[in-house]
Structures are given as structure tokens and as C-alpha cells.
């Protein structure tokens, strides 16, 4: 175990540093937008990971929270001229409340029941988005401005760093939550809720909390999405999107903090790169999900980790053939 902690101390700042450098080499809007979307997916994936990976709650309604964040930002910035950071705070508050609301159903339901209820939630929210004058109905909200940075609107490069800042924040918060008493309670809940209750873990409280927190993550991601793309419509927040969020999290690795990055890169970057094979792209994606569930339940990140471990043990075996391997 010592090995992994040490390597983490090196790898984490390294990847963070690399991530900070990447936007400088991107060059044009095409790459900036891909980078930004990958960052947004990472944030959503991180929240979903907390919900599904760490506490085992399967919610098919997260596109609704994504939508809440997007619409609040869009309407706030465009119609009311609110600054971006205020919209984000509003989105956080609203999503937290709605997350608690939906989470309360999770306290009594699980498995397919929760799936059905959350899908229903998504459907109803989408119906409201489509038919409410305030949200622009099916037409949506065009002309969403970018946030201001010292007077003038941000350009794409600055926006990349804004997204990156939120990504770091999201990952950091997840890390702190998981590596704490709360995190251990999550794992107890996921593995056996009844046993957890019997040792005094307040399962309901944590279920609500995680639901709300993951909703907040999705809301923040939605806010970033709206301001970047400049035009949002209800078609971006349907149940299909919820399914994509889940499959992305599974791909990356459930219960793995860095899994969301891998999942986001696959969905945001790889899918775009493979767009040429459009016909087969989605089928292969579905097959990939099934294959990962069966053979690599720890997701792609888990696969990468075990690969890394094998490489490390190979290296250490070479260096010190006489010494016994550390377990």
C-alpha cells in the first residue's frame, strides 16, 4: 500500500500540471470546445460516481439537474444580467434542494424502483422545460453570454481554465468526502445497508446528502455548459442523456475517484475522434459497457490501475530480485 500512496503523491501533481498546460497547446475553438466538454463531463461523472459508485444509488434523472444548472445560468445571465458566479451559486442551491427532494425517494426505494422514479422525474422536468414560457419552451435560450473577467467577456482559452478550476474543485471535494468518516459510511451503505444501519450509520442522512451533492455537481456542470455553448434547448436534457451519464461513469470505473476523468475522456474526446465511424460508434459503445461490467467491474480506470501495478511489480522485480515482493 505504501507504494501506491507514494506514487499518488507524484502522479497527482504531475497530471494536474499537465492538465494546466494542455489548454495552451489546443490552438483553436474546435479543440477548446472538446476540452471544455471533457471537463464538464468529468464534473458530472464525479458526482455520479459518488452517487452510484460509492453509495450504490442508481439515478436515471441526473440530466434534469444538469438542465437546472444550465437553465438557471442561461436565464440568469441573459434575462437578468446576473454575473456568472451568482448564477452558479443559485444553481448550487437549487440543485441541492431538488437533489434532497429526489433523494428522499431513494431512502425508501432502491434498484429498479429508484430507476423508475428518477426516470419519471427526468421526464416531468423535461416536459416542463419544453412547455414553459419562462424556459423558452422547445426553442430554449439562445444568446447566453460568457462570464466576464475583469470587464470583458472570457475567451475560449480563459474558459478552459475556468472549467479546469471547477474540475479540480470537484475532484478535491470528492477526495475529501471519500477519505473521511463520511466516505467509510458510504462504502458501508453500498455493501450492506442493513448491516450499516445496525452499526449506527445514519443511512438515510447520507443517502440524502450524496444525492444532493451529486445533483450540485451536475448543476455546476450545466452552468458551465450553458455559458460555453451559448444556446441551450430541452433536447440536451432528456432521459437519454441520463443514460449516457451513467454509462460514462461505469466506463470510467465505479467507486474510483479518477474514473470520471477516464469516462469523460472516452465520451468527450474518443467519441468525437471516432465520429467518422458514426454507424458503429454507438453500438460499440454499448458493447463496451457490457464488456466492462462483466470483465472489468472496476472500469477502465481499474484496468489502468492494475496495468500500472503490474508494471510496477515488474520493475521492482527486476531491480530487487532477491527481496521478497511487498504485498
Amino acid at each position, binding site marked *: 500500500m505504501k507504494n501506491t500512496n507514494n506514487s499518488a503523491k507524484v502522479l497527482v501533481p504531475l497530471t494536474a500540471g499537465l492538465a494546466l498546460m494542455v489548454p495552451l497547446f489546443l*490552438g*483553436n*475553438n*474546435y479543440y477548446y*470546445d*472538446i476540452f471544455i*466538454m471533457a471537463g464538464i463531463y468529468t464534473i458530472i461523472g464525479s458526482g455520479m460516481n459518488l452517487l452510484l459508485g460509492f453509495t450504490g444509488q442508481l439515478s436515471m434523472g441526473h440530466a434534469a439537474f444538469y438542465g437546472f444548472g444550465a437553465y438557471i445560468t442561461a436565464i440568469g445571465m441573459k434575462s437578468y444580467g446576473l454575473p456568472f458566479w451568482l448564477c452558479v451559486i443559485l444553481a448550487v442551491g437549487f440543485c441541492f434542494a431538488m437533489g434532497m427532494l429526489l433523494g428522499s425517494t431513494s431512502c425508501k426505494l432502491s434498484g429498479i424502483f429508484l430507476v423508475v422514479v428518477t426516470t419519471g422525474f427526468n421526464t416531468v422536468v423535461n*416536459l416542463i422545460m*419544453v*412547455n414553459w414560457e419562462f424556459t423558452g*419552451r*422547445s*426553442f*430554449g435560450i*439562445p*444568446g447566453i453570454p460568457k462570464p466576464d473577467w475583469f470587464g470583458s467577456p472570457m475567451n475560449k482559452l480563459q474558459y478552459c481554465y475556468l472549467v479546469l478550476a471547477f474540475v479540480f474543485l470537484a475532484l478535491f471535494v470528492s477526495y475529501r468526502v471519500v477519505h473521511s468518516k463520511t466516505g467509510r459510511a458510504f462504502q458501508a451503505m453500498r455493501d450492506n445497508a442493513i448491516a450499516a444501519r445496525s452499526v449506527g450509520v445514519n443511512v438515510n442522512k447520507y443517502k440524502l446528502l450524496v444525492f444532493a451533492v451529486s445533483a450540485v455537481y451536475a448543476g455546476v456542470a450545466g452552468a458551465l455548459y450553458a455559458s460555453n*455553448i*451559448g*444556446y441551450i*434547448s430541452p*433536447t*440536451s436534457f432528456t432521459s437519454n442523456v441520463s443514460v449516457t451519464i451513467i454509462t460514462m461513469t461505469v466506463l470510467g470505473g465505479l467507486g474510483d475517484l479518477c474514473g470520471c476523468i477516464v469516462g469523460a475522456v472516452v465520451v468527450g474526446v474518443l467519441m*468525437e475522434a471516432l*465520429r*467518422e465511424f*458514426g*454507424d458503429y460508434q454507438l453500438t460499440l459503445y454499448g458493447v463496451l459497457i457490457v464488456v466492462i461490467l462483466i470483465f472489468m467491474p472496476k472500469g477502465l480506470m481499474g484496468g489502468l490501475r492494475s496495468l500500472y501495478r503490474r508494471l510496477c511489480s515488474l520493475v521492482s522485480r527486476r531491480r530487487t530480485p532477491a527481496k521478497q515482493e511487498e504485498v
Partner: protein
Amino acid sequence: MKTWKTCLALVLVLSLLLAAGCTPSKPNPTDPSKTNSTSAPSKNTDPKPSDSTNAPTGQKQKVPIGVAITLSGDNAETGRNFEAGMNIALQEIEEQGLLKDYELDLKIVDDQNDTTTSLNVVNEMIFNTKVKAIIGQIYSTNTLVTLPICNENGIPMLVPGLNPTFSQNGYDYFFRVCGTNEGGQTAGFEYFIKDLGLTKIGIISETSENGQTSYGIAKKIMGSYGLEFVCDENFTTGDKDFSTQVLKLKESGAQAVYTTAAATDAVVLLEQIRQVIGDDILVLANGASESNFLELAGPELAEGVLYYTVWTPALQDQKSVDFVQKYEAATGRQPADVSARGYDATWIIATALASMDGYDVNAADFSAKLADAIRNVDYTGLQGTFHYDDVGEAFYTMKLITYQDGEHVVVRDN
């Protein structure tokens, strides 16, 4: 047990192969330029004889033009029809030797009818491929995302879409290559109210972006006649059960109904209307203009159904007749109205380029000059004569067409 399992697997494989082999023939109108379609996107040059050989007055400059249309998913048919129309235009432009200084380099890419993909596609076209103009997109939810980007970056966008709001933003780089829904509905309602004297009209609109915009226009037009819809219903995209809406329509005693439904939904709705209400009620359907409507509905069900368009295979002028002939020869199918849009869009770009006297493609303001050339273009195509006004519109009126014995017949020509 093992042999049993193997047999099972074998039978399954065979049946899947059987299934794949027995697929109902997929209509595939694009044949002359298969290489221009989905399987080989963006980095593809026009495979026609215009391979920059022996331009009599020196080397022809390649002008990259991006084409972002839907070539996959539910609406792949529409994109393929558009592409086929473009190919006919390309052939003609080549044969007539219109372009002396330039060579059209069309980069046809599938936008998958998805907003994020559309964003990536157009971004790639503008920033990586550095196209000088973009033709696209067919579906308005995608255009709404990408039109501002094109305008911001000074790339003229020729849009074959019907949503009237595109020209309401003061964009200098927007040009429409067809009519608008407003013109179409005006024709339709004029027919119902002025020509036939009907007063009881119903509307069944989809709660999609297209449906709601059309609904708004329809309400406005009805209002201008001092009328209201006797039956005002809508349906969510994907819902195929129209029994409630049809029942309400029946109860209202409507004499005619307008629906914004796309082809497949329109057929399902039409079936239910004919079943429950009968043949007396007139139906005006947006989806009836699509090429697969007649195929799905069949001549009997399509009889008397109205739709609006700028161009239809029913037109008898020489240009249209020639076009239909060439299209059928190339693809084995009748062209749809989107095919005419593709044809006209290509010709407009070519005509505009021809007027630019070999201006340097690599000049920084080439796109701006191209936009000016398009603005001043004087081109008579399938859909009519294109003279763009300040907001990028060319046509404000449309024709009303109906089906008779499986053929398109013009009812009203504004």
C-alpha cells in the same frame, strides 16, 4: 450439453445473417458519389472530373466548402436526398464549365442530428479545415447552435431550413436556400379560409422546437383572419398514440386540420384520423413533404393530403423536369424538396464564386467577399429566382401541393 449449445449458437448466427440479408431495401439515393457520404467524411474532395487537371487559364483554386447535414439516425433519408441534389448540381456546373478560376471542394460531414456533434463538426470545419462557406443544417435545433458561430467568424452559412427566426437576429452571414414556414402556412391557411371558406380548423402540433414555432406562426395567421382554432392539441415527440387528440378533433367538428408532425408521425396520425373521423376532413401536414411520406402512407392514404413547399416534383417547368429525370436516373427515386435545396445551394455558391474574378482564396477577407457575392447573386434555380434581401431571405411565399393518385399536384401557387 456442449454440442447442444454449439448448435444453438450456430442457429442464432444463421438467423442473424438471415435477418441482415433480408433487410427491406434501404432507399439509397446517393450513388454517383458514394465516396462523399458518411463512411468517408470531412477530408474528402469532390470525386468528379474536376480534379484540377488542365484548367485552360492556369491552376484552379480549391475552395473548401463545408456541408453539415444529417446523414445518420432517423432522418438520414433527408440528408441523403439533399446530398443527391448537390451531386446533380456539381455535375451540371462541371459540364457547363461555369467555374474558370475555382474548384468546389465540398466537405460533406454528418451532424448526426445532435447539437454537440453539430458544434464539433462546424468548429472543425471553421478552425481546422478552414472552409470558406458552410451549407447546413437541415434541422433547426442544430442550426441555432452553429449559425451564431458561423456569423461570429465571418463564414457565410447557406441554411436549407424553414425556421423563420434565423433571419431575425441581424446576421450578415446568413442566407436561406428555401422558403420559411411562415410562407408555407400562409399559403395553407389562405387556401382553407379564402379559397374554401372554411372556418373550423384544428391544429395538432408537436412540442418540438419546429412544432412550437410553427404553432406560433399558425396562431398568428389565424388571428389575422379573426379566427381561432376549434381544436388546439399537441403531442410529445416519440408518442405514437394520438387517440386522445384525434377524439378531441372529432368532437370539435373541425373541417380541416394542420399538423406539424414529421413524416412517420404524420402517417400514424393520418391513419387514426381517417379511421375515427373519416375522409371529409382536410389534412395539411408538414411531414407530407418528406420523401418517405408517400412510401409509408401509400397512395390511398396520402390522397388529398396537403403540404407546402417551394419546389415539388410536380412542377412542369423545363428545369424541374430535367432535374427529376437526372435525379431518377442517378438514384432510382423521385427527388424530395430537400433535393432541390441541395441543388440550389450548390449552384448559388458556384454562381457567387464565378462572379469573384479569381480573387485569392487565401486572402483574409475571401469569406467576406464571398458573402457579398452571395448577397448580390442573381440566380434562377429550381425553387425560383434568388435575390437576397438584407436579412438573407430570398422567398417569402410557398406553393401548396396535394397528392392525387400517388402524384404531387399543385393546388395553389402563390
